[in-house]
């Protein structure tokens, strides 16, 4: 591995029996980068994170974090990383401070700086006034913030965030993100996150789009969006199927079906709209123009929307639930 790459993954495979959850993926993450893993539930995001965090062993392939092999140098890897899991992993019968104290002890933070670090971490996530409250009484957002504080307590090189804002309201999500972005500029910690929220993935410097255990694209959000080409027109008509046929005949253009509307990729959307409105024989209900999102990139690459994949991967979600136990 080169000095700049803090995470290096080569031909990583993980199988559960006959099912291949992670199918020969390779990528590198540079120090100080925010790296996003984007994909539907059951795509292999959590499995990859579990391997990088030494919770699962790879079936084959190699991965290093901070220069240490995740299968052979587990202690060194663990000391180098902080984790915020998808499901809460706090002891909710202890206070905020006691949770951090436990962490400080098992991560070998010397007694002389323990208290200072805990104070600092609690201040950072604005929980210093609630330090002696039992975690059970915290809101979802507060718990998540406390977990982030805990994950950073031992000054890790990489912070892994597995769906960090899942199940939180938009306001709390924004706050957590403000906080994470600020943190990165201040501490220069590398952030590795998985998400299936598009807007969340936009915060990353680079994104790997993962589907069915494979990385199908890896680039900056802007370059990924350029793959779609031009603008997206959302079109609703009285008969979408007829309209789609008409468009493909008239403009040699493929209209994709996206949940009760048609999506069109065009180079100059604002000039194309008047033409379309004039020419189309099927009556138009509504029409709008936007820049492509990562959702469109996923749709283009897989032919499915991320939310469709989630419905069709119910089986994966179920096995995921079994893996994590009942809540």
């Amino acid at each position, binding site marked *: 591995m080169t000095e700049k790459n803090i995470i290096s993954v080569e031909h990583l495979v993980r199988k559960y029996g006959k099912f291949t959850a992670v199918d020969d993926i390779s990528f590198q993450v540079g120090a100080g980068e925010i790296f996003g893993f984007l994909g539907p539930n059951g795509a292999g995001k959590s499995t990859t994170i579990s391997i990088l965090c030494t919770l699962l062993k790879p079936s084959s392939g190699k991965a290093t974090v901070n220069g240490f092999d995740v299968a052979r140098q587990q202690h060194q890897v663990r000391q180098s990383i902080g984790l915020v899991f998808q499901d809460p992993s706090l002891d909710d019968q202890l206070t905020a401070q006691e949770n951090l104290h*436990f962490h400080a002890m098992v991560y070998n933070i010397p007694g002389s700086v323990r208290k200072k670090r805990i104070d600092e971490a609690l201040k950072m996530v604005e929980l210093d006034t609630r330090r002696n409250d039992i975690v059970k009484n915290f809101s979802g957002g507060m718990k998540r913030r406390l977990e982030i504080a805990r994950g950073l307590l031992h000054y890790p090189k990489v912070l892994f965030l597995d769906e960090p804002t899942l199940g939180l309201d938009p306001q709390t999500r924004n706050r957590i993100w403000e906080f994470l972005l600020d943190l990165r500029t201040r501490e220069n910690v590398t952030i590795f996150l998985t998400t299936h929220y598009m807007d969340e993935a936009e915060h990353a410097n680079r994104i790997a789009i993962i589907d069915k255990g494979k990385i199908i694209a890896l680039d900056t959000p802007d370059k990924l969006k350029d793959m779609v080409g031009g603008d997206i027109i959302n079109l609703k008509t009285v008969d979408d199927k007829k309209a789609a046929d008409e468009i493909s005949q008239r403009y040699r253009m493929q209209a994709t079906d996206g949940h009760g509307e048609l999506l069109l990729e065009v180079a100059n959307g604002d000039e194309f709209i008047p033409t379309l409105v004039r020419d189309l024989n099927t009556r138009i209900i509504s029409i709008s123009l936007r820049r492509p999102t990562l959702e469109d990139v996923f749709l283009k690459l897989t032919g499915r929307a991320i939310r469709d994949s989630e419905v069709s991967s119910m089986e994966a979600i179920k096995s995921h639930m079994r893996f994590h136990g009942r809540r």
Partner: protein
Amino acid sequence: MKTAIAIYTIWYRDMLRFWRNKTRMLGSIMFPLVFLAVFGSGLSRSMGMLAPGVDFAKFMFPGIIGMTVVMSGFMSGISMVWDREFGFLKEVLVAPISRVAVAGGKTLAGATIATVQSIIIMALAPLVGVTLTPLVVIELLGLTFLVALMVSSMGILISSRIKSMEAFQVVMQMVTFPMMFLSGVFFPVNNVPDWLAVLVRLNPASYAIDPIRQTVLQTVQLPPGVPGLSSLGLTVFGHTMTVWEDVGVVAVLAAVLIAAAMWSFSIQD
């Protein structure tokens, strides 16, 4: 040193939780208390003396101490399954500490809690007419802690393989009930049919109850001319077990189980 700190930290957290959650403390001593109250007072009169100076309540009391330790020792396993279900175990498993330390800390915590609970039962000694001297209490604490270690490691061993709460509770009952009823908590084990006698001697709990009983009953004032209470003791192949022999059996079992628990918990997927 690092491992010692890890074990201590894991132990300390369980102590905090135990202290916060007093209903749990009550929960695992309720059952033995009911047995003591119902069987002890209900059967004592009609059964008369089991040995000179020893009525059924006195006979059963040390058994109930042992029973409390066995019941609450298994809570270590419950606590582990609980941590797994509520996610906290993940925090522990990704920490830079060995799995051996995790299993060790959990086992110690379970054993400590079980010992504390047995003290509550010991405090009830005057109710059944038993007077415990300070020396006897110290002996009993040593015994109960050793027994608690054995049971607690068994709990951790089982919880390393059986991961859902429902399944664990079923298995725990399948293990604790025969251990209780086939151990001499409720009846002297020397005057039973052969099949039962064999099962009793295969049961690790028998070797836990016997020394506790011997230690408690040494406080009973024997009428003149009665040499001792060996008729109530556990015999193996005609040999009456001494306290030290029982302790030896329990210590070996505890060592094997704790090693097995640590090994089983360290296997990684």
